[in-house]
């Protein structure tokens, strides 16, 4: 009798434990299969200049952030001051203007700060699917080779930046620097 009660108690607490773990999980935090893969190719007009075509190559070259935003997305608006701080701190930020209207986006940027270096205009969400965009805002960290090293679905927060994004950027920059040093050393050796 006692054993049976113990078993029941153990089973009930196991179920409760599962429930508790489940409460702590955010069902929107999905692992992105794109982390560790090269930035997906795209060809889109620049938001500012319809004549100018941008590709993924315009995002690649140094350690950068790629932010997906739209004017209809209020969370993106709330997130922007933080992006501004990053941009002022010397972190290049590229962007997809996602499922938006060009006029609205340009007007919005003209009356407020613009943290973005380049903005690709993606009104139909074409690049959005290739980049695995769920919902705005989303932010990717690309290393200097253009490999996606991090992805955040939802807004960046100061805590997230301090805990995850900024250390990662620092680490990636150090990696890039080391790789460059190796390359120049190899060149020097080859010349001598």
């Amino acid at each position: 009798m006692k054993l049976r009660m113990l078993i029941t108690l153990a089973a009930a607490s196991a179920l409760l434990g599962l429930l508790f773990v489940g409460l702590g999980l955010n069902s929107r935090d999905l692992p992105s299969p794109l982390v560790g893969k090269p930035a997906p190719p795209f060809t889109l007009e620049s938001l500012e200049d319809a004549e100018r075509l941008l590709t993924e190559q315009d995002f690649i070259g140094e350690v950068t952030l790629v932010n997906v935003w739209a004017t209809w997305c209020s969370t993106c608006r709330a997130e922007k001051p933080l992006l501004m701080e990053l941009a002022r701190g010397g972190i290049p930020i590229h962007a997809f203007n996602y499922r938006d209207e060009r006029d609205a986006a340009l007007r919005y940027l003209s009356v407020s700060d613009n943290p973005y270096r380049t903005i690709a205009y993606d009104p139909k969400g074409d690049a959005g699917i290739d980049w695995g965009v769920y919902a705005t805002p989303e932010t990717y960290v690309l290393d200097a080779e253009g490999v996606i090293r991090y992805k955040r679905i939802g807004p960046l927060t100061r805590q997230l930046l301090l805990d995850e994004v900024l250390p990662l950027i620092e680490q990636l920059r150090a990696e890039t620097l080391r790789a460059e040093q190796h390359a120049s050393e190899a060149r020097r050796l080859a010349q001598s």
Partner: protein
Amino acid sequence: MKPCILQVRRILSLWLLVAWLPAGMAMALAIGQPLEFGSTAQQRQYDTLVRELRCTVCQSETIHESNAELAADMRRRVYDMTRAGHDAEAIVEFLVQRYGDYVRYRPPLQANTALLWASPFLLLLGGGLIWWRIVAGRRRMVQCPVFNARERDMLDRFCHGDDTGRPR
């Protein structure tokens, strides 16, 4: 004055949207929008696929049912790729590469889904074990009954023709 202009613009854009829907390709696909296919096989493939892919924004809906814009984009991708002659496997693979296994409503059998696939059988096994133990316990009781003094007393009375069950 401005809201008025905005309203006119909205109506205009709505009209444009409706007018352009038959053109299909340029816009995301609305739910139930009639589509043209090269063959019935393509149509069947599209109809199956949109019911097997999960809308990643509204996670309890397939892209067939979901009103989310992302679902509309995904429907359009599935449609375009189907028309372009890609087979179902390639299309699912395409979306899995971008959104992960999560987009499939029918998860593949692999290491991290083994428990998921095994769970019905494990539950059945567990239930079977409990059932077997209960049945076995009852059978043991019938074969070798254990009575307390009061029950023995009652049995005794039944055996001697007193069926009231009342104590003497």
